[in-house]
């Protein structure tokens, strides 16, 4: 106890120096906590975004992932319901499931009879309510992009798809422009308006004119009691005459990348199946599993492989990190940056405390010699000096934790938004300090550890200084 009192009082001796040191520790600790909170948010954000698109695990017919992109018909699964039931009733997988859904991914040609345009497209057939549920997967309670005022135009109006609207679908804004669906005079009547330039009219600066496009589809719907339509054309599995279905455009909205924006058509899975496999029951190319916890991904994947072996099912699996290595890449990149920042801040703390301790020890060398003369042994003296450093780290660390929490709350109040890579909407920047206290624990422990390291060397030197030499110090 005497050592603790002595250490605390010694900290108060040179108040300005101690205050500067504590401030440096607090700022470094809070900086690390805030950056850790940001990295933690980025990890979770990318995870939510990726799983929201692909699910945790995808199941395909063997060979589809490597070769099936151009030939979905050969790799389509006709037994989706059977697979779904099998998964839901498995004693290991069942309790871990959030839900199971399916997709059809295919390519084809889209034409607009009204504008006499045609282009290739990339089709994604989904169960509308499952797709919505998947997109809204938010296990970490991150601020939903849908709730941001700046994203309102994007999410306003009708939904992309609806369960009861089998023939409805949505296009990317780029595809809408290519098909000239953004031109008022050509929208519905099937006749080309001579007053309109044959060149596509792009919004100013070629940027997405979202309200205009949305208005287009809404107006179209009102105009003819229906909506703008396009025709989707696909070659049947066995060749012959191409299959054609009509797609009513429910919504035109921007996609994350130019390629998707110019090519993606999202439609009801049953409509897609009817296009690819006319007159046949539902076929899917991908079964998607959403789990309750991402941490179960590996275990469930292993169980799936065992299950498929037991049931002699010719299926393969891919996890969300395999499908989108971007998550691991960004995790690695941010991890490296975090370590880099950690090392920089740790060095700042180490040198600041080292400097403070060193100066204090030199000033008090004679006093330390006196303590040794009175009977304090080397270890005892080392302990007193280490305690001083630890208290600097402790007070600074507590200050850093409080500053980190304040920074989290401040950033929430500030509502900083940006468009993250890979998506087309704004996201609110968050630092998960309060919701991910591990970053606070790490920053605080780091401060204490740095304090210990930086105090150890001056303390050791003081403890090893011969007593008579220490006493001679003035």
């Amino acid at each position, binding site marked *: 106890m*005497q050592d603790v*009192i*002595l250490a605390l*009082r*010694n900290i*108060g*001796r040179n108040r300005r120096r101690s205050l500067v040191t504590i401030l440096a520790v607090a700022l470094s600790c809070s900086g690390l906590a805030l950056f850790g909170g940001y990295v933690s948010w980025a990890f979770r954000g990318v995870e939510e975004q990726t799983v929201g698109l692909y699910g945790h695990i995808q199941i395909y017919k063997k060979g589809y992932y490597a070769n099936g992109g151009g030939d979905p018909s050969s790799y389509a699964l006709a037994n989706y319901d059977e697979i779904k039931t099998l998964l839901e009733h498995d004693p290991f997988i069942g309790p871990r499931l959030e839900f199971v859904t399916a997709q059809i991914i295919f390519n084809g040609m889209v034409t607009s009879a009204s504008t006499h345009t045609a282009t290739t497209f990339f089709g994604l057939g989904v169960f509308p309510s499952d797709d919505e549920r998947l997109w809204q997967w938010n296990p970490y309670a991150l601020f939903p992009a849908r709730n941001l005022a700046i994203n309102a135009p994007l999410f306003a109006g009708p939904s992309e798809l609806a369960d009861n609207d089998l023939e409805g679908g949505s296009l990317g804004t780029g595809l809408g422009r290519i098909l000239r669906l953004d031109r008022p005079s050509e929208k519905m009547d099937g006749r080309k308006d001579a007053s309109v330039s044959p060149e596509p009219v792009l919004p100013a600066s070629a940027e997405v004119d979202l309200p205009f496009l949305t208005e287009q589809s809404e107006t179209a719907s009102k105009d003819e009691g229906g909506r703008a339509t396009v025709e989707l054309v696909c070659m049947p599995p066995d060749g012959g005459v191409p299959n054609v279905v009509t797609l009513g455009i429910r919504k035109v909205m921007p996609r994350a990348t130019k390629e998707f924006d110019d090519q993606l058509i999202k439609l009801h899975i049953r409509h897609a199946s009817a296009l690819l496999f006319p007159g046949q029951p539902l076929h899917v190319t991908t079964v998607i599993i959403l789990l309750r916890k991402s941490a179960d991904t590996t275990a469930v994947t292993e169980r799936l492989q065992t299950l498929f072996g037991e049931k002699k099912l010719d299926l393969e699996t891919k996890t969300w990190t395999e499908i989108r290595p971007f998550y691991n890449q960004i995790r690695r990149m941010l991890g490296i940056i975090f370590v880099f920042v950690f090392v920089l801040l740790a060095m700042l703390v180490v040198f600041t405390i080292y400097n403070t301790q060193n100066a204090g020890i030199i000033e008090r060398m*004679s*006093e330390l010699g*006196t*303590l*040794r*003369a*009175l*009977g*304090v*042994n*080397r*270890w*005892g003296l080392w302990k007193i000096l280490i305690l001083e450093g630890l208290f600097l780290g402790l007070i600074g660390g507590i200050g850093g934790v409080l500053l980190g929490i304040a920074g989290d709350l401040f950033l929430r109040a500030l509502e900083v938004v940006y468009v993250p890579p890979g998506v087309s909407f704004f996201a609110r920047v968050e630092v998960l300090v309060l919701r991910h206290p591990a970053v606070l624990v790490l920053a605080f422990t780091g401060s204490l550890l740095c304090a210990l390291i930086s105090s150890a060397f001056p303390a050791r030197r003081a403890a090893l200084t*011969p*007593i*008579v030499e220490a*006493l001679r110090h003035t």
Partner: protein
Amino acid sequence: MPAAEILVEATNVSKEYRLGKTTIPALRGLSLDIRRGSFVIIAGPSGSGKSTLLNLFGCLDQPTGGSIRIAGQDVAKLGDAALSAFRARRMGFIFQSFNLVPVLSAYENVEYPLRLNRVPRPETKERTMTMLEAVGLEKHARHRPGELSGGQRQRVAIARALVTHPDLVLADEPTANLDSKTGARIVDLMHAMQQRSGTAFIIATHDEMVAARAHDVHKLHDGRLES
């Protein structure tokens, strides 16, 4: 002199300091016995080796040659921890510059050696207050060294040196930083405390007034005893 009466037994002690390639002898084959309960003065001019001798007797330094036995213990054979414990139990120190811990009060400074010796708290309190009363500073117990005069600080140092009832108190120029009147009072106090406690005092000084109070005066010159 009967062996039981001898507290400090220095035999052929020498101490050399190295300054670069030069070796400077501070003590040259000095032999000296100090009796228990004696009041001994080591006198001599500056650089004669007084402080060096006190440092060796106080186990703060090791001799280059010879041996020192204190209370029958060859101190050269003790490691740092044992030597520290030995100092804490058996020795008290009074320094020229008082060397009190500035962040501790007078009470806490006196109490500190008892804490090191793990004396129970009630006894610590009683002994500390007794010592402060003995040096006339009971009313200044809460004052920190910075709030005390030079004489008062040295009295706190005397109380701190004696509170553990040591065998030996070593005082290096205890009056050098005090005016003559205060210095005389301090010497009187040390003498009275020595009489009361039976503790041996070894005082290094060149102050004649201090020397006049001693049982034995040993004069040092160039690292050798003159008497």
